[in-house]
């Protein structure tokens, strides 16, 4: 049973291995991690450290090999495909490094896509919700453009709008600035930052760039599949706290 005071995400001795012809390649070892609602967390580490794998497991795109993964206090290991699909549709959303938008499809249709799979948002609300999400990333004038007519930065903002449209509990961002120049990257990070500070959204960001990671209030370092350090980014945390006090 989900508990009301349970953390959003809790893992206990979470392990992940990949198997290739009986050959086991361990990626994550005994990961104990708790993330609460409203946090903005960066997961950092060199490539091969397991940061993306961890994020995919936490975002229900991949399954762990062993250990426990509780989402809002609910065990997720035994969930079937439909239950997992429901969580993906309603609770979590993703911003990918490669944008992963549908080509030759309009911005509006791309942003609306998750709503097609959402079990409870009525069809009549789809358009307004999508336009609101597009507005919040500043692309209202591009709503009827095909995504392949947009710049990389704009495409990533479409992806962010898509991740907002279902009003999920967590937004995962996997190297969201990795394919962008620094100006577009900064714009994208500003949008993400705003989502956190203004709407108090929980954001988990995977990156290997220090500067990008510094947008978060909490920074977790992974090395070789283990948590190396888990620290508070005081500069951001204070700013965020000050802002919430001002309100």
């Amino acid at each position: 049973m989900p508990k009301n005071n349970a953390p959003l995400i809790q893992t206990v001795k979470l392990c992940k291995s990949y198997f290739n012809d009986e050959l086991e390649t361990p990626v994550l070892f005994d990961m104990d991690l708790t993330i609460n609602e409203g946090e903005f967390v960066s997961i950092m580490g060199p490539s091969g450290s397991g940061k993306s794998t961890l994020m995919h497991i936490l975002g229900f795109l991949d399954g762990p090999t062993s250990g426990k993964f509780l989402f809002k206090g609910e065990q997720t290991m035994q969930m079937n495909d439909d239950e997992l699909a429901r969580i993906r549709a309603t609770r979590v959303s993703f911003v990918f490094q490669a944008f992963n938008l549908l080509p030759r499809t309009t911005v509006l249709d791309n942003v609306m896509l998750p709503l097609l799979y959402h079990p409870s948002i009525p069809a009549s609300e789809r358009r307004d919700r999508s336009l609101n999400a597009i507005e919040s990333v500043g692309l209202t004038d591009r709503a009827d453009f095909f995504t392949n007519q947009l710049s990389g930065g704009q495409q990533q903002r479409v992806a962010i709008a898509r991740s907002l449209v279902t009003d999920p509990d967590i937004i995962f961002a996997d190297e969201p600035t990795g394919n962008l120049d620094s100006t577009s990257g900064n714009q994208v990070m500003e949008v993400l930052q705003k989502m956190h500070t203004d709407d108090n959204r929980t954001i988990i960001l995977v990156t290997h760039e220090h500067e990008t990671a510094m947008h978060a209030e909490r920074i977790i370092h992974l090395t070789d599949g283990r948590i190396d350090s888990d620290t508070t980014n005081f500069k951001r945390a204070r700013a965020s706290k000050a802002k919430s006090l001002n309100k």
Partner: protein
Amino acid sequence: MLLSDTIQTAYKAIIVHRMRSLLTMLGIIIGVGSVILMVSVGRTFENYILDQVETFSNNLIEVYPTGFEKFGRTTDSLTFEDAEAIANLTTVENVAPVIFIREKVQYGTEELSPLIFGSTSVFLGNYGLKLDKGRLIDESDEKSARSVAVIGSEAANTLFGNRDPIGERIRIGSRFYTVVGVLQSLGSALLQDMDTVVTVPFSTARAITGKHQLDYMSMTSKGDDDLALADIQSTLRQRHGIDNPEEDPDKDDFIARSSAQATEIIGQVTLGLTIFLGLIAGISLLVGGIGIMNIMLVAVTERTREIGLRKALGARRKDILLQFLIEAVTLTLIGGVIGIIGGVGFGLLITAVADKLLGSVSFSLSLSALLLSFAMAMTIGLVFGLYPAKKAANLRPIEAIRWDR
């Protein structure tokens, strides 16, 4: 996910990937269309040729000297006496000995090279040829070897135009003949235009060619073709001194054949043609099918990533499968229907052209080819549309998104 959303999603996907959709449909169109076209055209011509044979009365029997078919052997084995002997048999009637006159027919400046039959009064009836105007060749023409002729409707048309041919004199070789009758139009039979025939009395033909031997004879059986053929064969073998109890056709110096047998032989030939065309069509169906497989397999990588994305956004396995099912069914249905329309359309076109050239060709659609090719195309489309989708839908979203094979 609502069904209406799934349908819309599927149609959007078809339109977004319009090139791939078109190529998939093209494979189905070509496969289905060619099978229907080939098999239907084959059957159309089979029917046409069988019609040609069946135009003759059903119990027509023809007897040829062997050399008629085999070069280098005697062609003079049949005599008028043979015909008289056969006429005495109880199993046959309407025995008509035939001598061809190989000459041109002229009237004024018009000229024609028809088949000129010298035969008796029963000859025309054996082939279902009926009189339109004037009279037939009768016994007294035969007895006196008169120079009279009965001509086919087309021959009359060519030689006389709108004028009445009865009583006019035509020239055959160096002699003049009076036209006494014109036949009704019959169309073509055995690929021979029966409306251009010219017939003269047998005795006249014999007199001017000086031949004692027959080119062939025609008759009808009194009901049982096999009995009649057996009688004819034993009579002729006896008269020609041929000892052939084992019925080896090589030993005989004649061939006796009923129109039913001819129909059967021709039917076998045209069936062979249909099978051959069907085989070619089958190959094009296969090629079309391989085309579909190719396109779908090439699309797998891209589509697997799309499926991964949709799953990441919350699509259930059945949402994915239903979408791909609708896509595949739509493409194969549209392709199949266009293929059917195209195949039948081209078939009708070819038939229309053939009808102009040959006459009395009517299109015969092969329903079994239609259904079979459609079912095949449908199966290929569905299997190769759904199988990769099913595999992808069973992957974890991240595996599908990162698919790169």
